[in-house]
């Protein structure tokens, strides 16, 4: 069971959390102006990385807030947890 660092509550067991899939997928501003292919890309296509994955989690049985986590999908190590709207640590450079 993972131990996840909620940015508001601290480290808690995975069973308090709900997984939300890949993070940083922004809903298009004007969906009507998109081609089917572009819309499908937003709707269905995910990177499915082997390695460091940015993903959304919700502290569902806690503060009920959504946040982002960087997790290695091979080792399951969690490298960072950060709030919505923030960029993943180390992504500035």
């Amino acid at each position, binding site marked *: 069971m993972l131990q996840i660092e909620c940015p508001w509550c601290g480290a808690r067991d995975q069973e308090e959390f709900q997984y939300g899939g890949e993070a940083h997928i922004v809903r298009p501003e004007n*969906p009507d102006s998109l081609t089917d292919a572009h*819309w499908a890309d937003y709707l269905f296509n995910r990177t499915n990385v082997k390695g460091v994955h940015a993903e959304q989690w919700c502290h569902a049985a806690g503060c009920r807030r959504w946040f982002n986590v960087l997790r290695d999908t091979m080792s399951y190590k969690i490298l960072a947890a950060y709030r919505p709207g923030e960029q993943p640590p180390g992504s500035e450079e």
Partner: protein
Amino acid sequence: MTSARRLQSGGLVDRSRRIRFKFNGRDYFGHPGDTLASALLAQGVRLFGRSFKYHRRRGVVGAGAEEPNALVQVGEGAYSTPNLKATQVELYDGLTARTVNGWPSLAFDIGAINNRLSRLLPAGFYYKTFMWPKSAWMRYEHHIRHAAGLGRTPSLPDPDQYDKRHAHCDVLVVGAGPTGLIAALGAARSGARVMMVDEQSQLGGSLLSAPAVIGGQAGLDWAGEVEAELRALPEVTILSRSTVTGYYDHNFLSVNERRTDHLGPAQSDTPGSRERLWRIRAKQVVLATGAIERPLVFDGNDTPGVMLASAVSTYIHRYAVAPGRSGVVFTNNDSGYQAAIDMSNAGMEVRAVVDVRMTAGADVAKTVADMGIPVYLGYVVPSVQSGLQGLKRIEMAKLSADGRAILSHKGLVDCQVLAVSGGWSPVVHLHSQSGGRPCYRESQACFVPGTSVQDERSAGACAGSFSLAACLQEGADAGVSAAAQSGWPGGYVDIPVAVERDEAPLQPLWEVPAGALAGDRVKKFLDFQNDTTASDIRLAAREGYRSIEHVKRYTALGFGTDQGKLGNINGLAILAETLGKSPGEVGTTTFRPNYTPVTFGTVAGRALGEQLFDPVRKTAIHAWHVRRGAMFENVGQWKRPWFYPREGEEMHAAVNRECLATRSSVGVLDASTLGKIDIRGPDASRFLNLLYTNNWDNLQPGRCRYGFMLGEDGMVMDDGVTTCIASDHYLMTTTTGGAAAVMSWMERWLQTEWPELKVYLTSVTDHWSVMSVAGPNARAVIKTAGCDRNLDAEAFPFMSMQSGEVAGIPARISRISFSGESAFEISVDANQGLALWEAIMTAGRDYDITPYGTEAMHVLRAEKGYVIVGQDTDGSVTPVDLGMDWIVSKKKDFIGKRSLSRSDTDRPNRKQLVGLKTQDPSRVLPEGAQLVNTPQAERPVPMVGHVSSSYYSAHLGHSIALALVKGGLSRMGGTIYAHLMDGSVVPATICSPIFFDPENERTKS
């Protein structure tokens, strides 16, 4: 009743007290400190069970968790536990145990016929019979199933309690042998919070089984001193009779603590739990899990009396039991010699040490020679002979230099015990579960832990260090450094001196060629529990299996309750030899939790039943429904009245009566379970516009609107009526089952996509009691109950809400209808719910007011063509498919809108909602019935849809159904056919899904 094999002195048993027990119906006794296995061995019992497939007689092989044969069912009735290892069962007064696999009796076993038919039961037999031909399986199934049982599940509810505890520690030490003890001490002295978990009843590990001198004192005395110091430290927790069963991500480990099993069922009456599941998050882990000796693979190696050399030593030292009168040792390494020394010291006649090597370690060779025990170097035991009570004699033979052939037959040696040692397998299970990959160490012919992936390290025998001195050194280092890495740098421990023996290296011996005693049915067992033999592995290789994972599944190697603790390494080495690879190249199978079996009681803990596993939700009016004799339906976690049968009334009669009463006079439904979300904030209507397909800008306070919520894929996700209470305040209702998911959905969008919206959500489902009063006399009933609002249609139109009082209770009154009737939905504080319900029932007496349940509600709504999300939709249905384009705004964006114009959602001939009328009006189609276009057609028949809702409408006098049919909206008046399970074909006419009052005259009235 004698204890012929019990030694006069020594051991850790208390001879002053007798414990009586029954095994297979016979009386025996043992002493405190005994296990079931040691007590039976002490009384000369050699047969403990039958093997699973061939039903061969089996005896005890090991002395602990590795035991594959001596499986017993312990205890009676509800207390009974199947498949315990006799080597781990502690005795208590009155214990009863039965062999689990001895049907019909241990001495005469019909399943043993399998042994003679063994040519018909090769590896892969079950697969082959399952796969082809099918009829073969039918033929064998009865026999196999009857013979295949391993223990019996108790059929009574478990009276015991089980619980769970969560713990955090700095250092978790697994195993309390010499390595674990010194590791725990080194770590604990730093002040770190240390937990030490050990599976046995007493700390000491290997020190319980063999004589050892540590720092000039007896090994167990040293262990006792370490234990005393640890117990005196406030941050140390020691769990005995506790097994670390799993190592999961982020250093999370599960521990099964057996708290009262050793005391017996008498403890069931005392408070507290029988077993406990610990869930431990450790900063650092020290694995000191030791090693398990490997058997040798030769013909008849499963004969009762063939035991692990270390187990023989354990029975002598720990339990003071000599497992026979005479013994022989067969080994490929020095450690086997210890069994010869121990057997001799215990008064057994040791007739030979058979060592496949040409050189033995100088120290053990000298000791054995001094005792006058003959040693045969370069020899093997290729075959054995057994009598009714197990081993009688062994064959000795010279092995060729390449190990593949028997060169010369040396002769037969009579003995009751053959102590075997094929080397040691470090217990790398937990390391492997933690994500590490064990790697093969050629020099010791064993797998040792690889690189650590999590914060763990292995020390001592589980790391391939088998000498006591090395164990103490590694344990100390591991404990001190683990504490330091967890933030406690002050650990220390002096390493006491332990005698090192001069050792000669092991010589791998994976399989012994068959000898002169072997008949034409040579059987060299790898996995005793599943009867997997060396030739099964070779057969699998011949049939093309290359991966050990596949060979495991094909041959059932390691599938037993012992999970291959003895046989897996031998099996993979034989596969490697067959394939011309090294054992390291073949690799191990995956080690999965649990290390040893865990009872369901422990897994469940207290999370049982309606209170703690799946809580039941009841409305404030529930007690009334119960008194009224309602039958209930589960909707999510809610109990909802399904229908209210009168004395002797069938379900259909009750539902018809409830429907007719509502249509003709007045009915009342407890609608409290509908999800309710209070939405506030200046951006509330903007948010609703994004959530719902229709437009919310123009909804005035006091008005209600129905809405569809779609997923971003355009499919209907939920529906409900939302009421505008003020321009910045709305109350949303959701489906009963979808409430929590909708709440989460809304929170997610607000937090992750539109954080700029000022909207605040509160779940208020339980705050309100809601009842729907429906029917032509609904208004009259509420007037009778007393209401301060003008209820007339003009003053209080359909889809509006007013606050007021009903029967003196403050209420929100809404003109909402899911029944198609003139209806008033009254919401009051949940604490007043029952009072209002009773007031309405009293006021309605003159109108024959009828409470109706969910079944009547379904019929009434289906008559109106109202869909139920999740019944008439299945996640692949858009609002357009439901014929409800009118609710989909063309002007604004909303979640899922773009998907409605995707090529697939936009295509014609999608499945669309229609009504069906069976041509025989009394015939009610089953829900889920598949629909096709022709009454008779060649198979495969193209399916064009299915029935989603179907009822008999008493009001209309015919059956009604809703169905999803390909292109259904353009097939009005057409005929479609339901092909039913009983072979009948039911024709139906496609019609509008609205069967009743399409103009909504009733709802508006």
